[in-house]
């Protein structure tokens, strides 16, 4: 008889199987992940969690029989006698939808860990080539003093700490001080009485012996300076969400914008330890708001894009020094802007915003139905296009359907040149 405690054995034995399953179900899970992420707040996207995937693609077929005459023995007869007939349930359609017939589209819920979720969410995205700084490397290591240690290289001996300890030890062990010995020697010199002299010599001998026993510096006292490697967080990013919320922006357009921001956030979160989001909405005035207000708060008024850029510029100056922060901006708009604002907008972008930005994406959102591409270019689009043609690092895309968001994002981040070529027919 053996009783064995297996609780300490590592669990997660089936992890490998789980990963195999995920690999196999990748496209299904990926679809589910995208669907799930659409219903969440930007920051919650990263929480991982449950997705529902159709079992169909993961079906393991077996030969199964169905139909025909069936015989069954059941418990719990209360009133039937031989020869009775029971009504079939749902008679009429029973033939078509018997249990287990046809392709059952039953789905099951699958809990993804945070990492699995995000991996699938981003999957094959790449960093934009445009990056001014080396942003793939999220951290650099610094060296920092971290106290003292009893071992180390001689170069790192801390003299003051060692002496301090030696001193403490000498005092504690009552090592005779130098002047004490000298005093005694002087006393011996001066002494005339034989007996007293002998006694003093004895004391001196004792002191000298003690001095020898208790060294001035003992190996025990030696301390070395200790250094530690610490990650230095240059790895922080801020993402500016700029949105035009004037009357012309419909819920649909905001929804498109939200999805784009969400992707951007997740994407950045993956690369940086700290990601801040700044929501700036604007009409003819710009203000910084929270996520809820940003997407759902009512607002109306004229449109001055420059106000948002100005606001962003000020926030950057106050809170996000470009030396410490990687700055990203994504602007979503339906493309309307006051005619008179064009010049100021262009100036702000080229002078203030673009120089400090890693990446500036302009997303022109259109009404569902895809008509955006047929119309003549909006004033903002025309302006941005002009800037881009003169070499400004801008990315611009038009989107009018939810399903386009991911591909557009993908394009923007996958190969920028292609994205631009596509955008500029």
């Amino acid at each position: 008889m053996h009783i064995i405690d297996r609780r300490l054995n590592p669990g997660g034995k089936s992890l490998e199987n789980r990963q195999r399953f995920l690999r196999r179900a990748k496209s299904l899970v990926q679809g589910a992940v995208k669907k799930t992420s659409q219903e969440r707040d930007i920051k919650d996207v990263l929480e991982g969690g449950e997705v529902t995937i159709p079992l169909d693609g993961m079906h393991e077929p077996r030969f199964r029989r169905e139909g025909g005459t069936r015989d069954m023995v059941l418990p719990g007869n209360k009133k039937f006698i031989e020869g009775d007939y029971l009504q079939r349930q749902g008679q009429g359609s029973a033939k078509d939808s018997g249990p287990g017939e046809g392709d059952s589209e039953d789905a099951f819920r699958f809990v993804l860990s945070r990492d699995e979720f995000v991996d699938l969410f981003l999957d094959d995205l790449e960093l934009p080539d445009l990056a001014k700084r080396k942003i793939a490397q999220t951290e650099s290591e610094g060296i920092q003093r971290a106290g003292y240690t009893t071992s180390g290289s001689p170069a790192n001996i801390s003299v003051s700490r060692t002496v301090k300890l030696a001193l403490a030890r000498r005092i504690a062990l009552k090592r005779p001080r130098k002047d004490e010995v000298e005093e005694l020697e002087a006393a011996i010199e001066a002494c005339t009485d034989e007996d007293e002299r002998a006694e003093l010599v004895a004391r001196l001998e004792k002191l000298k012996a003690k001095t020898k026993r208790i060294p001035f510096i003992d190996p025990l006292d030696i301390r070395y300076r200790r250094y530690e490697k610490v990650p230095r967080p240059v790895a922080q990013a801020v993402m500016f969400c700029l949105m035009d919320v004037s009357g012309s922006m419909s819920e649909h357009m905001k929804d498109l914008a939200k999805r784009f921001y969400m992707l951007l956030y997740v994407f950045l979160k993956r690369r940086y330890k700290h990601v801040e989001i700044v929501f700036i909405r604007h009409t003819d005035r710009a203000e910084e708001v929270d996520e809820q207000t940003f997407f759902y708060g009512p607002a109306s008024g004229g449109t001055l894009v420059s106000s948002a850029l100005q606001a962003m510029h000020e926030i950057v100056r106050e809170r996000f020094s470009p030396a410490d922060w990687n700055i990203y901006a994504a602007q979503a708009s339906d493309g309307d802007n006051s005619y008179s604002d064009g010049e100021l907008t262009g100036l702000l972008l080229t002078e203030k915003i673009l120089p400090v930005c890693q990446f500036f994406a302009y997303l022109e959102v259109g009404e569902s139905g895809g008509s955006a591409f047929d119309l003549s270019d909006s004033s903002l689009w025309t302006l941005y296009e002009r800037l881009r043609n003169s070499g400004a690092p801008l990315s611009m895309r038009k989107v009018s359907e939810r399903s386009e968001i991911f591909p557009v994002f993908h394009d923007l981040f996958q190969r920028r040149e292609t994205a631009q070529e596509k955008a500029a027919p």
Partner: protein
Amino acid sequence: MTERLFEGADWDFHTLQRITDACEEVALKDLGLDVYPNQIEVITAEQMLDAYSSVGMPLFYKHWSFGKHFAYHEASYRKGLMGLAYEIVINSSPCISYLMEENTATMQTLVIAHAAFGHNHFFKNNYLFKQWTDAEGILDYLDFAKNYVMQCEERYGRIEVERTLDAAHALMSHGIDRYPGKKQLDLREEEKRAGRRRQHEEEVFNDLWRTVPKGASKARTAISLERRRKLLGLPQENLLYFLEKSAPRLAPWQRELLRIVRHIAQYFYPQSQTKVMNEGTATYVHYRIMTKLHQQGRISDGNFLEFLGSHTNVVFQPEFDDPRYSGFNPYALGFAVMQDIERIVTNPEDEDREWFPDIAGKGDVMGVLRDVWANYRDESFIGQFLSPKLMRHFRMFHLHDDPEERAGIRVDAIHDERGFRRVRRELARQHDVGFIDANIEVVDVDLSGDRRLILHHRVIKGSQLNETDAKRVLQHLADLWTYGVALIEVDANDKVLREYVVSPRPIAAAVA
């Protein structure tokens, strides 16, 4: 009064040892059980979930479908839709029982009595397990299988291995020998043989031989149909075996994978035929042991009540119109029949004397039960021992559902004098694995033509194969056979009802 085994709900390893010793004493002395050595392992809930996903085995080869099952169980467990089993027990020697750490002391006692003695005795003594499983060798064999699959993945690629295993899994329920006659399974020997076989194949492989001219081959037509079928061992219902031996273009390692899946299917085959008996035995044994321990004063009244609560839940049988109903509960049915046998043996009524002349009033309960446990499977067990009294107790009735019948589902028999035998026969048939699984056989191979494999499904009671699934399984089959496959569904009069024809998919590896 004897000392209590434990107080309250807490336990430690000393308690487990005391409990096991106490259970063992009752099991061996009072019940006369004969068990494999026991090994009891305490695990966490997470480990229990892990165990679920690899069909309860401590080691198993890796495959995505186990991951799928894990995810499925985990999700429903976390949502509270499903409780975890109290125990998992493995038919091996030593017999391994997993206990969950969350169980109370009473539950641990119940589980030890149930698994380590009830199931254990059944595994060791039932003729099906003796015939088809090799308790000493299974763990080593699984270890071999796991490593073999891993090596194959390294050598031939994960995708290739996965494809073969997927196909083998699809055919798993048709990878079983249903009738003994061949020699007993010895998995250790099997494992050694696999090694020798590989070695031999490597030694004899000589490319030169391929260029040696052969003598004039016998005209194909000269071989008679009968002879050909005999050479191929047809008809053959063990599809995996047939493929392993006869599929023309499988690599040796693929044959070995098919063999592994086939052996594992065979190992689990007795379990599917003895669910009612196996659970009935274990439940009966735990009930006897717990009652005895309580009588001896080793379990307090409170703990015994706790046990009775769990026990009652386990043997609860909802009635057919209850929303909780999902067929007969094997625990309930098995336990009821075992208890009924006890009653018939010790205290029979006239009806019992008439129905069970062999055992009524025989007096030796354990002797009779041990004999039953050793020599029956669910079908014969129910067919033999379900008494009129129990049929009345469960209020059983037999329904006959003919889709052609407009009036509805006919009540064919109920629990009365006229119906007892019919109800019992029908319930027994429902537990006959040979009857539940589709009857599919390889009947011929068109050797002179396009080498198409021909299978028959003999349709019983008009119940045909699910079309979608059938096509998918046949696709797997065709991929392994590497030529076309035809499945013909015929009724009892050889009338063809439906015919499937599937061609193999091109092998991706050959292209790459």
